[in-house]
């Protein structure tokens, strides 16, 4: 049995008359790449939002590394080790690529304003370390040559890569990727798949939302399928692909069968 990193228990999220998540139970094991799929409006991004504390649960609980996330502030959840990217790229556009990553890595830094003002040894050391580490992460994502360019001036693909680098900057234990391949061509998708595998090999756990099935099938250890706010499958990629319930959720059932 592998160790559970995060676990959602009976998570329900209600907006007005609509249940976006309905008693969802799911978990992600340490060290795996887990994919979250499902038709539009199935509640995938809502899962990311409840995990990162953007929404308060209507009911249910989320435990991360054995402790409940309930009531924690969003920045504390990040500090505990959960980082994410966004469906529509949301970089700090007026900062350079390097600064974007360093800002994220500041979450574990200790030096404060006085340190910055007087350039205390600790502050200088932390700045040095952050910078080195940020360069290293940019290098890892293959965009270190963009380090000094502003976020908003980066080409689209590099913006997506920078978002991943920024999320990794917070030293997450769990990395949430929201449609990282959106708008990518096949070659870029292939490169991204390799990057995600490398991220896992570095010891990070990945939960990703993605629509490109071939990408998911190629890299995920497990696939969780949501439909209509409910979990309808949770299995190996190959099994999920042939699960009649999943096919029905995606392609619909013939009219006469309903």
């Amino acid at each position, binding site marked *: 049995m592998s160790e559970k990193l995060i676990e959602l228990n009976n998570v329900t999220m209600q907006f007005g*008359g609509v249940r976006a998540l309905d008693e969802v139970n799911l978990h992600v094991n340490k060290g795996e790449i887990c994919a979250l799929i499902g038709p539009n409006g199935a509640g995938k991004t809502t899962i990311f939002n409840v995990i990162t504390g953007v929404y308060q649960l209507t009911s249910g609980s989320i435990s991360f590394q054995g402790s409940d996330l309930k009531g924690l502030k969003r920045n504390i959840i990040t500090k505990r080790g959960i980082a994410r990217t966004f469906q529509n790229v949301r970089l700090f556009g007026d900062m350079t690529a390097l600064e974007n990553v360093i800002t994220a890595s500041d979450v574990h830094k200790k030096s404060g304003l006085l340190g910055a003002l007087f350039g205390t040894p600790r502050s200088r050391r932390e700045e040095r370390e952050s910078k080195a580490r940020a360069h290293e992460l940019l290098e890892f994502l293959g965009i270190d040559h963009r380090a000094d360019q502003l976020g908003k001036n980066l080409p689209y693909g590099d913006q997506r890569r920078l978002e991943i680098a920024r999320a990794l900057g917070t030293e997450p234990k769990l990395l949430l990727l929201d449609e990282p391949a959106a708008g990518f061509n096949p070659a870029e998708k292939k490169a991204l798949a390799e990057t995600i595998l490398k991220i896992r090999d570095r010891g990070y756990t990945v939960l990703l939302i993605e629509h490109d099935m071939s990408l998911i099938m190629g890299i995920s250890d497990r696939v969780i399928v949501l439909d209509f706010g409910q979990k309808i499958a949770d299995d190996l990629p190959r099994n999920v692909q042939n699960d009649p319930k999943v*096919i*029905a959720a995606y392609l*619909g059932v*013939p009219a006469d069968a309903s």
Partner: protein
Amino acid sequence: MRLEIKDLRVHYGKIEAIKGISFVVNEGEIVTLIGANGAGKTTTLKTISGLRKVSSGQILFDGEDISNVPAHERVDLGISQSPEGRGIFPGMTVLENLEMGKYNRKNRKIEMNEDLEMVYGLFPRLKERAFQAGGTLSGGEQQMLAIGRSLMARPKVLLLDEPSMGLAPQMIANIFRIITQINKQGVTILLVEQNAQQALQRAHRAYILETGNVVKEAKAADLLNDPAVREAYLGTGAH
């Protein structure tokens, strides 16, 4: 009323969401655009209804290029969109929502009762809930309201964005039956749908979209068992 899209390109921020697609919707047809999420279906509809700006290409409605006509005037021309998801006005009653559908119609007052009866005929549920706030309806009822509201404008072409989204199977079948019925009353329909089975059974013709491109056009019935469809959704190696 023929709707023709010619080499349409749309940018969404930096992303080219639609990469030069062309297709035709003939009068009286139900045409469906199918494809996985992110293929550009919704963007295509929003561009036709004027919510998104065209980067290049043309939208010909009855032979006229309408790509620079503001969204609110396209409604007057006869193009109505029923938006994706819960695009109703939550703080208004069902009746008020329906009235909004006729906002700009010339014969608004005269036609109102007639059209309300028509919509209530299609969706008796809405009549029962006429004085309830839209936001308190269930997902399926909200979808009915969105479709009913777009019918109030007496559109020549109706754009339907994922009418089955988030609905239970029973409700999905119901909605699609009604879509056929609307079409039989003479409304041309462009349907964007993820639920390919239903869409293909109801439509005359279909286009498959993949990442902003049309990859296949065919008679809807012919696509029903085409592996290309399944591939578009579930990827290669599905079987």
